């Protein structure tokens, strides 16, 4: 039985094939424009207002919604649902368990994963959004639940609009695969 347990770690298949040059190029263009947009708003418009439009998890979302646009994890439902639910869960966990930050962090991420599964909104950057709500420092903690709206919902929505516009330009691509 123990041998079966370790045997499972061997792996059974191989990596999927690599994408072509066109895919690589359009992934780059989408990610650049998406991040540039939220970053510009964050640093030019919101600077000094104690708000931000960009968090680390958006880098992860960019990989999905510009680089793996067919993935179920990259669809609008997952992007928005995943980020927003995770943000709320993260803020709640911090407010409940702080100052036990290590515990709040673990609860936040684990609960976010489970909740995203249950609501069919699994989105890997959501885990990061939940984690940032706990370990993101004073500027994040000060926002309280506003964190779920700015930067989370607003930033994710802006990136979604860029994805809708850019991903559908080449003939070989389309986005999204589904809304609901």
């Amino acid at each position, binding site marked *: 039985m123990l041998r079966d347990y370790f045997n499972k770690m061997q792996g*059974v298949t191989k990596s999927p094939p690599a*994408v072509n040059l066109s895919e690589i190029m359009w992934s780059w263009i989408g990610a650049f424009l998406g991040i540039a947009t939220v970053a510009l708003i964050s640093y030019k418009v919101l600077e000094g207002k104690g708000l931000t439009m960009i968090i680390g998890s958006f880098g992860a979302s960019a990989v999905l919604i510009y680089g793996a646009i*067919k993935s179920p994890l990259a669809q609008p439902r997952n992007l928005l649902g995943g980020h927003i639910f995770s943000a709320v869960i993260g803020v709640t966990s911090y407010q409940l368990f702080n100052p036990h930050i290590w515990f709040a962090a673990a609860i936040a991420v684990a609960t976010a994963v489970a909740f995203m599964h249950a609501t069919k909104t699994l989105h890997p950057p959501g885990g990061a959004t939940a984690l940032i709500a706990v370990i993101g420092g004073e500027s994040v903690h000060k926002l309280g639940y506003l964190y779920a709206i700015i930067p989370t919902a607003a930033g994710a929505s802006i990136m979604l609009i860029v994805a809708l516009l850019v991903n559908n330009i080449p003939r070989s691509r389309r986005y999204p695969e589904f809304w609901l």
Partner: protein
Amino acid sequence: MDENINRINLPVSIEISDDDIYEAMKNISGYLDITPADLKEIYKFAYRHAWERITQSVKAHDIMTKQVFSVKKDTPLKEVAELMAEKSVSGIPVIKEDGKVAGIISEKDFLLHMCAGDKPHFMAVVAEFLSGKGCVTFPVRLQKAEDIMTSPAIIVREDATVVEISNIFFEKNINRVPVTDREGKLLGIVSRADIVRALLITGKPLT
């Protein structure tokens, strides 16, 4: 010999190779968020679902011959043979007054009672005939359909699938089966030829 290889209720072919899957993935230009192994497994399941859907969807009702020739229990055997010869059928159901199936007569039933010895094979009759003994026909008492019919007859309902009927043909070693309603009244008949025709129709490649 494994008799199960003759059963036709298994998917015809699930021999997609790992390379087939990998090459197919290359046909899609975007990043596919699935491993080749999972894709192969989904393919096999989808194929099986399609096979079952297709084979379950064709029923006795769809392929049976509705204009069934039949005889009564007291029909003289000479008439039975004449009818079978005239309509070129190798088997014929025997029905009661109320239309219910009483039994079935096939060529084999005739041969069993003819001078064929143990083997109900036509050539045994020919051999007997050629041996110069002449064909000693039936004992006098065997004069009516009910005397040589197989009873009770194996029957199926209208909603029996092609696969179920084929398995019956294989297991019972018969070539035709009457189709009846819930009370046993004759509705039609399915022969091996009907099965072959049904499979040829449903065997069209999935688009």
